[in-house]
């Protein structure tokens, strides 16, 4: 009998396969492996989509009836899904297959953490009254699209930094030479960050509208809120830094790494280290 947890377990392992294919393709500079990575990525993405939809239906069968976006487990699954969605669209539009390693790896890690960590409960749970809101669904979806774009941009930044700061002549030979040029990487990075900034802005706004409809304050400096603002400020700084002469390239890539560190802290650090309104998310 097929159920959501079987589909999501398959997803976890085949994202690993996808990562390995992309990685091997880059290391051996062999394009068919990259194509294999894309194929596995697309199929896994579809399986995962089915898994998420099935979980949604199952929650109705249990009498709780809510979108599968309500606890840490479900949000990790959704994070993996968003990363792959954005990456695959990006790959399709730019026809760049060599950048798939990091997105696939992040998707695998998110799924693996969700499935294997003992601290994470994967059961479908009922929804607390404060969480019953369409704004919440919009909030979670948009935030995660933003986080996913930032994760991909983090991967591109790492490649950019490796390539730019690698001694020797990376343009002609070796693994790094197989990647797009640093100028192209910089351009992709910027596009991805602007895209992430767009969704993070929408995410913060929908969250704030939700808070206002639930308890009458659109901004209360709750730690999670504050950290998403910090993240937003770092990426805003990055977008403006590019307009100052001489700030392209390395510094932008480092800022993107710093921004992603803020994303991770907003997502995990706040739950585990600080307390606040969003503490439900740790369960």
């Amino acid at each position, binding site marked *: 009998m097929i159920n959501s947890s079987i589909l999501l377990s398959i997803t976890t392992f085949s994202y690993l396969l996808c990562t390995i294919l992309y990685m091997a393709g880059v290391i051996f500079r062999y394009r068919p492996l990259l194509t294999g990575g894309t194929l596995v990525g697309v199929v896994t993405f579809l399986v995962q989509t089915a898994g998420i939809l099935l979980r949604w239906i199952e929650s109705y069968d249990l009498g*709780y009836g809510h979108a599968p976006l309500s606890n840490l487990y479900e949000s990790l699954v959704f994070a993996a899904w968003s990363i792959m969605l954005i990456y695959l669209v990006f790959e399709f*539009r*730019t026809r760049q297959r060599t950048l798939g390693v990091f997105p696939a790896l992040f998707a695998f890690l998110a799924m693996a953490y969700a499935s294997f960590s003992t601290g994470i409960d994967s059961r479908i*749970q*009922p929804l*607390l*009254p*404060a969480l*019953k*809101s369409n704004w919440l669904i919009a909030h979670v979806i948009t935030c995660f699209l933003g986080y996913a774009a930032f994760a991909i941009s983090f991967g591109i930044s790492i490649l950019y930094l490796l390539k730019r700061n690698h001694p020797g002549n990376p343009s002609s030979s070796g693994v790094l030479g197989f990647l797009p040029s640093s100028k*192209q990487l910089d*351009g*992709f990075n910027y*596009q991805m960050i*602007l*895209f992430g*900034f*767009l969704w993070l*802005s*929408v995410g913060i*706004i929908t969250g*704030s*509208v*939700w808070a*206002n*409809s*639930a*308890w*009458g*304050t*659109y*901004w209360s*400096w709750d*730690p999670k809120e*504050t*950290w998403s*603002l*910090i993240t937003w*400020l*770092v990426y*805003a*700084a990055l977008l*403006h*830094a590019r*307009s*100052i*002469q001489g700030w392209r390239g390395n510094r932008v890539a480092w800022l993107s790494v710093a921004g992603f560190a803020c994303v991770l802290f907003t997502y995990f650090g*706040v739950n585990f280290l*600080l307390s606040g309104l969003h503490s439900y998310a740790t369960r």
Partner: protein
Amino acid sequence: MDHHPIERLENMQKNRGLPGSLYDALASLKLTLFLFFALAGASLVGTLLPQGLAPEELKARYSPSIASWVDTLGLSDLYRAHWFQALLVLLCVNLIACTIQRLPKTLKILKQREDSFDSHKLLKFNLNHSFTAQLDRDDARPRISNVINKEFAPLRWVDQPNAFCAVSEKGRWSRLMVYGVHLSVLMILVGALIGSLYGFKGFMTIPEGTSSNEVTLFSDDRMAILPFEVRCDKFDVTFYDTGAPREFRSDLVIVDQGQEVLKSSIRVNDPLTYRGITFYQSSYGSMLREAEVEFKDRESGKVHTLVLPFRQTRDIPDSRDTVQITQFSKNFHQFGPALGIVVFREDHSPTGSMILADKPEFHGNKVMNYQVKVLGIKQVPYTGLQVKQDPGVWVVYLGFTLMILAVVVTFYASHRKIWVCAEEQRAGGVSSRIVLAGRTNKNASTFEEDFNRLCERLENELTIHTARGKPDDQ
């Protein structure tokens, strides 16, 4: 990719004197970056240090010297500290100065129409393409128009002495979008300011079946009196079978000048608004309604049993004393429920004591000359409502909407421009050289594809059709 023409204009301004340099500094992107990082850093500190500590807690938590620093810098109420708000004001000033400095220049760029360029200049662009067509210039011209008008945007001809040249562009207006984003930031901050100046936020508890118009304000523990009453007819909690709460609901009635004007059930996420004031379901609990209490006069031995509604005075028969329950504790110092009972007697100051309800033999269960025994307690559920009025919220929401629209357009739209020149290879010959160039301020890779596709179409059009002769002139 296009480098920012605005930035280049800025570099041309030098030697401006002190007021001028101050203005430049206020309008500069370096200040913007500084403010972004300063705000991010300060917010970070605010999430690490506990916020909203009372002075005593402050002393208990930190050593005296650190406590005085924390106090001076307002670190335990950081987001309301003057220096933090000054950073926000400075961001607004930066934004306004920047707009005043740049908007006129952007508008100038938008109005500017090029009227002279040639194929040599076009070949210096990053993105260019040239080919030879077996057509003379006059024949090439309508075909070029045809293709570019259809595939890209209308062409504007700027003819040169020995070449036909034209420009075509799309998305000029998209350069204005960042001003939209920036305006939205200002609107949100202004809306928040309006809310903090002219709005209020507070809390009220209404026992089931009663009404109230008193709101305890969060800001300074004062009471605000609403111009109408709110009655709670019923409060209800339902649970899932796991025991987790499923829903909180209060049935409220607004009573304005004695009239029941509005009846509504509120839930979490589903508030009620009346005359600009909004009520949110935020907590619940139970409180004392009344208690049955026995008073035994230890001198005369007389016993009286009274039913005392919470916080209302009653006379004790055969005496000049009145009595009131002023406090109720569900678990007083781990001794179970207790009532604070106060006896008022003429020429005496009021005297009271906490009476333990479950321990009638406790020696402290007395007030003045009465031995007090609690016979029964009746509680009522109450609903806890968050109450707020925020006249600025619409400005904030308008800012939100503008921000989303403007950022979406900033992401998707770009200012793309295509130049084309057709010149004769040899004077009087039947072949001409066509040169194209393109430039965008964003999304370079997609534009490059579009550009290449357009060049291909044009090349096809100008080379294939020649075999079949002239197309209809239009």
